[in-house]
Structure formats: structure tokens, C-alpha cells
């Protein structure tokens, strides 16, 4: 049996002030067996980029899968050698002594299929043609991601996750794990998520996609062959998305009507919020792939487990047997608390073990990535109960 011990390099490198999993090395798992996709096509072979933190115990019972949201990756915690600023996206949550304690749990972060950070996606080479998949890469779904994650779990020797955890789109993956792989998951942490996207959510995604699709440099998705990148489209897509991650309250506090250098009667960025959004858009357009963005927003739009049960979410959740922790944030308007309450209500109807925390936080949807004592306290308490053994109350 291969050993999957920590990839941490200890404290030999410049350690940040708080405790971190330290320097980590991403790994790639290659799969030769084809993966059937929801769209009807199959990936003949694929790679999954992943990272692990902590040590898998002898009983292989302490593994926790962390699922990422729209534009994140398998780099959940720690930093890379020579890149101390390249810190994992959930480093405040995952690490030694942190709410998801890597001294107790073996944590796996995996880059989703179709993404552009190491797992097979539109920027990967299509073995059939010898060139990048580009626009020919299939549209993937949350279910496809979870099926691929299950293959990785097999590879790692994890028959059953102690927990699957994620925020936003990551929470949807946790939900899907609970429904379609009930024997392989003991706890689902569904954070700042929704049982499906609302019309408004889809509308925002469609604007973002249109920005990319109508960029003259998109070239039907084959922009790489033309040696260009639809940067303008990606920028606008990111700007729109970014607004939905923040709250009005937070934007007002952070930017208000502040100007950079006074009014200039021009279309150059004058307000701080304009300059902030442009900066976010620029940054994103540099590192993100347009074909990936199109596909991941589609995966979001398509997710709706209740379509399999005539729109009845409770019935859709009936196969799930794990314990659930559902968390929402009061100022999140992308996936408001009312959407999390739908999940809770459906689970209660199915008499499932579920706890629900509604966190008072001013940061909108982004709050799930930020430090908040109550939020982190509840997650910490949840994992501590898990580590201590089975809970006392059962439904």
C-alpha cells in the first residue's frame, strides 16, 4: 500500500506567524479508465491535481475532502516552495490547530475537472488530437466532479470520507456526495451554498458568459490557435461576479464614493470601486481560462438535485444518511440564508441529523472565506465532536 503522509515540509521555510501546514507540493493522479459525463460524452483519460495535508490514520477513517468553488483550486492550505505569498485559499480554516485541524484529520484538496490549475480541462492536451481541448472540452457538471473525486478517493484508499466540506459551489459538491455516495460520507459541511441557482443567479452567470462569448478575441473558444486571449470578456465576467460576492454594506464601508484623484470628466477609473473592480478583472484575466469560466458557470447553473425528483428537494435528499452542518451568512445575497434554510427544511423533513448556523457577518458571500469567530467556532466544534466520536443525538 502506498503511504499518503503529509506533504508538509515542516517549519524549515519562512513560516507565517500563525500555524500553517507549511510548504506543500501539489500532486497529480492520472486515470486511464474513461469517465462517463452527464452530457453523454466521456473523458478517455484524465488527470486530477490535488494536495493533501495531515496523515491518513491506520483505519483510513480521518479523511476530509475540501471542495473548491468557482475559481479556486486544490491549493487549499499552506504555500509553495519559493512562493511564500501563494497561500492556499482556505488557509485560515485548514491547518494545525485550525478549525479543520490537520493534526487530527487527513485533508484532501482537489482541482475539479475542467478547471485550469492542473486537472484535465480545456487548456489540457486532447490525446485524440494532440492539441489543447479548447472549445471542444465537454461541459461538465457537479456530478461529474464528484464522480472524479470518488476515483481519487479510491486511489488514496479512502473508502469513506469522515467529512466532505465546501463553500458556495463547493457546498453543492458536498451535497451531491451526500446524495449519490451516501455510503462514502459521514458528515457533509454545506457552507454558503444553495440547493440550486435562482433565476437571478443564472442571469448574472449569463452576463458573465456573454462578456466572454462576445469578446472578438474569443474566437469560438479557439483563441489559443489565434495566439490571443479574451481578456476583456474575462475582466468583465470577473467584475460582475465579484460584485455578487460582496455586500452593499461592505462595499460602502470599503469604498463608498471615494475618488482616486477627484473628478476628471472622463471614463478613466475615478471612483475607488471602479479601480478596485478593474484591478480584480485584470488579475483574473491573466491567470484564468475563458473556456473554464464558461464551463464552471454552466456547472453551477445545471446543479439541481431536485430535478431527479420532480422538484422535491426533500425526496432528492432521501438517499443521504450522513450528518449535515449547514451554514449561511446574513449578508450573502448571492446564496442568501433562505436558500440554506431550504436545504435544512428538506433534511428535517427527511429526519436527517442536521445543524444550522446563520452567521452574522457583513462580508456577503465572501464571508465563507473569511475569519469569523462564530463561524470558525462552529466548524471547529463540529470537527472536535467528530474527532471525539459519534454524537449523542440522532434523528
Amino acid at each position, binding site marked *: 500500500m502506498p503511504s499518503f503522509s503529509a506533504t508538509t515540509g515542516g517549519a524549515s521555510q519562512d513560516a507565517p506567524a500563525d500555524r500553517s501546514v507549511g510548504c506543500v507540493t501539489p500532486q497529480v493522479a492520472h486515470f486511464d479508465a474513461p469517465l462517463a459525463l452527464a452530457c453523454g460524452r466521456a473523458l478517455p483519460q484524465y488527470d486530477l491535481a490535488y494536495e493533501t495535508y495531515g496523515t491518513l490514520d491506520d483505519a483510513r477513517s480521518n479523511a476530509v475532502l475540501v471542495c473548491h468553488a468557482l475559481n479556486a483550486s486544490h491549493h487549499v492550505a499552506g504555500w509553495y516552495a519559493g512562493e511564500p505569498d501563494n497561500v492556499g485559499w482556505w488557509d485560515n480554516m485548514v491547518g494545525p490547530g485550525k478549525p479543520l485541524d490537520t493534526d487530527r484529520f487527513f485533508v484532501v484538496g482537489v482541482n475539479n475537472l475542467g478547471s485550469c490549475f492542473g486537472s484535465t480541462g480545456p487548456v489540457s492536451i486532447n490525446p485524440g488530437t494532440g492539441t489543447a481541448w479548447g472549445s471542444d472540452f465537454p461541459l461538465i457538471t457537479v456530478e461529474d466532479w464528484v464522480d472524479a473525486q470518488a476515483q481519487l478517493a479510491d486511489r488514496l484508499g479512502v473508502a469513506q470520507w469522515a467529512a466532505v466540506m465546501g463553500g458556495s459551489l463547493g457546498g453543492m459538491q458536498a451535497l451531491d456526495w451526500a446524495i449519490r455516495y451516501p455510503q462514502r460520507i459521514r458528515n457533509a459541511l454545506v457552507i454558503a451554498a444553495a440547493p440550486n441557482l435562482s433565476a437571478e443567479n443564472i442571469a448574472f452567470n449569463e452576463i458573465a458568459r456573454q462578456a466572454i462569448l462576445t469578446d472578438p478575441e474569443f474566437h469560438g473558444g479557439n483563441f489559443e490557435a489565434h495566439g490571443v486571449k479574451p481578456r476583456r470578456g474575462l475582466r468583465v465576467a470577473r467584475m460582475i461576479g465579484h460584485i455578487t460576492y460582496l455586500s452593499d454594506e461592505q462595499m460602502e464601508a470599503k469604498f463608498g464614493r471615494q475618488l482616486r484623484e477627484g473628478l476628471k470628466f472622463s471614463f478613466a477609473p475615478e471612483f475607488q470601486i471602479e479601480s478596485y473592480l478593474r484591478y480584480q478583472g485584470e488579475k483574473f484575466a491573466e491567470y484564468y481560462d475563458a473556456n473554464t469560466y464558461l464551463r464552471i458557470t454552466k456547472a453551477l447553473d445545471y446543479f439541481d438535485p431536485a430535478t431527479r425528483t420532480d422538484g422535491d428537494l426533500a425526496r432528492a435528499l432521501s438517499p443521504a444518511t450522513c450528518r449535515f452542518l449547514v451554514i449561511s451568512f446574513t449578508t450573502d445575497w448571492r446564496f442568501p440564508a433562505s436558500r440554506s434554510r431550504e436545504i*435544512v427544511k428538506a433534511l428535517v*423533513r427527511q429526519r436527517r441529523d*442536521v445543524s444550522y448556523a446563520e452567521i*452574522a457577518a457583513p462580508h456577503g458571500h465572501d464571508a465563507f472565506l473569511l475569519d469569523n469567530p462564530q463561524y470558525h467556532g462552529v466548524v471547529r466544534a463540529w470537527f472536535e465532536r467528530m474527532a471525539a466520536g459519534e454524537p*449523542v443525538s440522532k434523528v
Partner: protein
Amino acid sequence: MTPSTNRPGTPPTPVNGVGRADYDTIVQWIARDARVLDLGCGDGALLRFLAAQRSATGYGIEIADAGVLASVRNGVNVLQNDLERGLAGFDDAAFDVVILSQTLQAMRRVEAIVAEMLRVGREAIVTFPNFGHWSHRLQILRGRMPVSQSLPYQWYDTPNIHLCTVADFDAFLAARSYRVLNRVVLAAGSPVTVAPNLTGELAIYRFRRR
């Protein structure tokens, strides 16, 4: 978030202890494997107690952050919610028993919550501090608002806005034709039978629709 309505009228219970006088009475009315909903569950101690004593299952509802966190630590199912919004998340007759322990007197919409309890549960258990206790009456006779062990707040900082006596609650239930299955009134942790509305500190009712 709105301020805590976590079991006003009594000091907080230690997470690991079951020090509440009404728990010992309530547990006698809970059948084995009963499905229980505990409204204003605080730190989840009652649910934990009922799970241990009766293999009871179910959920607690709690509005206060500290209560939610403590309930998760206690390993009970807790749902963060404001009881004043009703129990819309629960189906009719989903529970054997719905408990409202020392929270009624702090609620704005008392009639609505009692009706909701009997919608989602077959039976309701309600406990509250008895305003009719002689010491409260004596303090009012002396011209002051009562402060006691069961009502430890001053008039200006109390969360208790709907105080009632044992006789008041009897009349409340009778007027709605609810059937009282049990009524226990405690003083110093023991049941009192003589003039309970004068000597009792804590009233515990079990009732259902007729």
C-alpha cells in the same frame, strides 16, 4: 442578530450539568425514542439529557450564537432560527413532543407559538416562572417590581415581557380548549400541591389539542 432569548429567567446552565429542576419532570413525560423539538434549546443540555435518558431524537431551535455553538459542542442537532418567525420549517405533526422550557415569558407572540407547537407536535410541554409566587406578590404590595431567583432581572433589563401566573395559564389553555395532560408546579425543585399559584416557583404543563 437580535439579542439572546436563551431561556430568560434563569441563569445559564453549565454545559455538562443538568441542573434544571424542570428537566426531571419533563423527562418523565417523554416516551422512549420520542421525536422531540426543543424551542429555545440554549446549550442543548435538555436534548442531550433526553437523548441519554429516553433515546429521544430531534432538534433544538436557538437564536443566540453562544447557544448554537454550545449545542454543536454538545453534539445535538441545533437549528439557528428566530422562534418569533414561527415554525414554518416543520411539517404538521412531525414531532411527538414540542418543548418550550422557560422561554414563553420572553416571547412577543405567545398565542402564535403555542398554536404552532400543537401544529408540529402531538403534545406540548411549556414551563415558565410563576409570577403568582407569594414573594412576587409581596414585592408588588411593597410597591416594587419583583426580583427573585426565578425572575432575576430588574424591570428595566428583563427579557421577560409576558409573565403570567399558574391561574393565568390555566385560563389561557381552558379558553382555547387545550387539554392539560399534566401540571406540575415546583418550589425549591420539589412539587407543591397546596396553593401552587401562591407557593410555586416554576410551572410545568403538558397539554394537547382536545
